């Protein structure tokens, strides 16, 4: 598999590590022992949609620019439809300069 890193260009899979499904971290409120809050963390940490199809996931370009990437990939075909930096978009200008 090749991943088109927005910074480095097309790179081999072997340069990356992957974190799996891009799950948002729940927003914690003050009561850390609240059952709903805990349930939301359990869900975010352990449970997955695990779709056969389009999958949004985080990858880290470990042997490259060390960016965390948000990758949109089809788990049936491995076709990658979108790769973007997971960080804020202020660097976009630099990419195109």
């Amino acid at each position, binding site marked *: 598999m090749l991943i088109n890193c*927005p*910074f*480095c*260009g097309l*790179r*081999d899979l*072997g*340069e990356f590590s992957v974190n799996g499904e891009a799950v948002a971290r729940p927003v914690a409120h003050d009561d850390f022992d609240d059952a709903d809050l805990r349930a939301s963390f359990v869900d975010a940490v352990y449970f997955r949609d695990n779709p056969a199809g389009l999958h949004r996931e985080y990858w880290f370009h*470990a*042997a*490259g*620019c*060390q*960016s965390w990437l948000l990758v949109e990939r089809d788990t049936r075909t491995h076709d990658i439809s979108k790769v973007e*930096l997971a*960080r*804020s978009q*202020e*660097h976009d*200008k*630099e*990419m195109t*300069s």
Partner: protein
Amino acid sequence: MSDLSGVSERDAAFGLTLETTPHYYGCGRRGRAGAEPGVVLQLVVGDERFNIEARRGKTDELFISLRETFGRAPIKPMRTVEAGGFEFISIGPSRWHAISRGPDRDERHALLREAIHDLATMVEIAHGFIVFRLTGPMVTEVLIKHVRVDLDPEVFSPGACVTTELHGMTVQLRRTCDGDAYECAVARSYGGSLFHALTCAADPYGLLVLPAGDV
């Protein structure tokens, strides 16, 4: 800002000497015998290298400041841009290395520091790297054994620079701006393994390992 400015073996005031010949580094001819070596390898010492990363939301200002100081914003993804005696290598979003060699580095360093001011963090990291310089007619033959990015001289043109994987190590591979040489930088601790990987790959073409030096 951490400041290791002026760290250099030339600084005779220092009471410690810089190690320039690691235990694994053996000089001389090796590999296939022949008149001319296909590859010449040399450990580069005496660099200054700064890791610079823009502060959050300050990238634009930083570009402007650098442009004012150096005549241009020396930033281009995966390229080396020469400006003000530095080689600026873009290594990631809003991150780059500034390498400086040769005399008058203190003045340059001061200028860079001024330009960066509080727009970026700047960490001296030269000691964290081992840099091998490779020249000779067979260099790309050696590198294509290890590197998965396209090294076609037209694609990997003078000034090109990538961070990529080489024999399980993360290396920064550059082609010098004059196009004559390739430089391969790796985290210092991997120096021996990188030396081994490169020299073994170069042996079939005849290899000359030069004593470490500055370039």
